[in-house]
């Protein structure tokens, strides 16, 4: 991915670089917060101007190019939307997460790139395991994230996430979770 991506020059950061470890630590910490349902702490890791998107994936002939819809997403969120979702989960009436899902966010295949602005662009694979109740089989969501992390005095903050999911038809009951 090093080189020019969408008009922006990105330089690969090797796995020996402190920036690489900072990015991995960020993703691991974030995963733990989400799995522990500590959403307020999770929100604190997001920049004020965060954008969070998960386009719909489609099955096309011959190629994986163009296999996301440009005009339909599972998520296309700003801070207001994410905040409202968190507030809802905190009410006593978010039935679909009561009892709560037990989740594991597995984050692997991390690649880190540095933008001219100093931001880190981080690609990773995500495998989400979701178990709920005692009768249903667990559900999985798998995809690739491309994140942009901004350096701030408080540490790295997520400015943008794009999650490209691998299923065109989701097999999870809903996305009352964050990916």
């Amino acid at each position, binding site marked *: 991915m090093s080189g020019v991506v969408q008009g922006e020059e990105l330089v690969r950061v090797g796995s020996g670089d402190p920036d690489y470890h900072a990015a991995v630590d960020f993703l691991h910490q974030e995963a733990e917060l989400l799995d522990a349902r500590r959403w307020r702490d999770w929100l604190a890791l997001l920049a004020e101007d965060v954008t969070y998107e998960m386009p*719909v994936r489609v099955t096309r002939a011959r190629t994986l190019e163009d296999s996301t819809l440009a005009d339909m997403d599972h998520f296309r969120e700003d801070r*207001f939307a994410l905040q*409202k979702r968190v507030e809802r989960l905190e009410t006593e*009436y978010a039935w679909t997460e009561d009892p709560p899902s037990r989740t594991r966010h597995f984050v692997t295949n991390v690649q880190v790139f540095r933008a001219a602005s100093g931001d880190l662009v981080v690609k990773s694979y995500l495998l989400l395991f979701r178990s709920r109740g005692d*009768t249903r089989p667990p559900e999985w969501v798998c995809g690739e994230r491309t994140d942009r992390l901004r350096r701030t005095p408080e540490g790295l903050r997520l400015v943008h996430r794009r999650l490209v999911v691998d299923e065109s038809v989701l097999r999870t009951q*809903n996305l009352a979770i964050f990916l």
Partner: protein
Amino acid sequence: MPDDRWLGQLVGDVRKGWIPAAIYSDPGVFEAEEERVFGRAWVFLAHESEIPEPGDYVVRRIVRDSFIVARDEYGEVRVLANVCRHRGMQVCRAERGNASHFRCPYHGWTYRNTGDLVGVPFHEDAYGGDREFPKSEFGLLSAPRVASYNGLVFASLDPGAPPLEEYLGGFRFYLDFYTRQSPAGLEVHGPQRWRIRANWKIGAENFCGDTYHTPYTHQSIAEIGLFGEHKPHKRKEGVLYFADRGGGTTYKLPPGGFADRLRSVGYPDGMIERMAQTWSREQRALVGEAGFMVSAATLFPNLSFVHNWPRVREGGPPVPFVSIRLWQPVGPDETEVYSWFAVDRLAPEEFKQDSYRSYLLSFGTSGMFEQDDVENWTSITAVAAGRWARGLRLHSRMGLSREGRLLREPLADWPGPGQAFQGFGEYNQRALLELWCRYLEGAREAVEV
């Protein structure tokens, strides 16, 4: 297929508003539905705006039968069975794209997007050429009946189905609020697709008339202030209407004229002017005089609509959105949901963007309304499969006395077709399932409810 005696008993109970739980879980009932409901009714496949250019196609199903909905090179919309005429292979295995031809990967038979068979390898050597095997007789088959209304493309597997407009009947009046807000009509985006472990009928019933669940199921939405007012409790002021093949719910709007009331749900003036020019006098009266706005609705058997108006920024005004959704049956206990965002083509770009955000927050895979709805429906479906519970008769008699009399009279001065009641009641769910009963019994002309 279950025996007709048992089906007769189920139908008899359903008609009394006592719903045998087995209708939400039984494989035999599902088999009967596949043949008698989905084999006969008009079923929604796609909106024309999904395939704007010649060659554009989407692949859709009626239960297990796959169809290519394509715009051919002459601009005509075709609904072609996705089945090679030779050995039955699917000729298209993508879900959307643009193609002038569909080629079967098995032996290479090639069809134009009009359905015409144009290529048969070794046509002369293998088949004796056009004399013995005229290619013109082996094009892709069209769905037995195809028709569209306001750009909504429907097909019926029943060659004897009534004309679509007759099938829709009085429900067309209400369909226009969602699909014809200007002469240009809708553009639809999506769909999102996901599978839920719920019987397809539960969503269809919910959307056509369940205002009673809103204050409780969706209490979280009220609590986080996604609406300007505590809207759930307003549901009992709404009117429930049902006309021929479909019905829906409404909200009572604040006082004012046609334009004031549409402004109150967040429509900009340009859109309101186009609605005023496009809708009939009676349609305008439903909003401007009676003071109601359509919300959720279902067209039998499995197409639903939703119109609602949450806010998309802190303290911001309401922003209305329209969503179209299909409850695509997979099995008795599983449904694939197709959920589209729909917006008037002539709406201002900024409105389209906000309306899209309003949709994503509320409905679809991540929608905060939809999440809790589906939680209920999967639970009902799981319970209904129990050896003991499947024999239970669930209560769908709200609005009826013990003896079965209406507790409230239908509105005498409702400006739209069909029957309308104000307040809570399961009139529409009963009307929808009455259609289901008639189809299971084999009636094709089940228009009058």
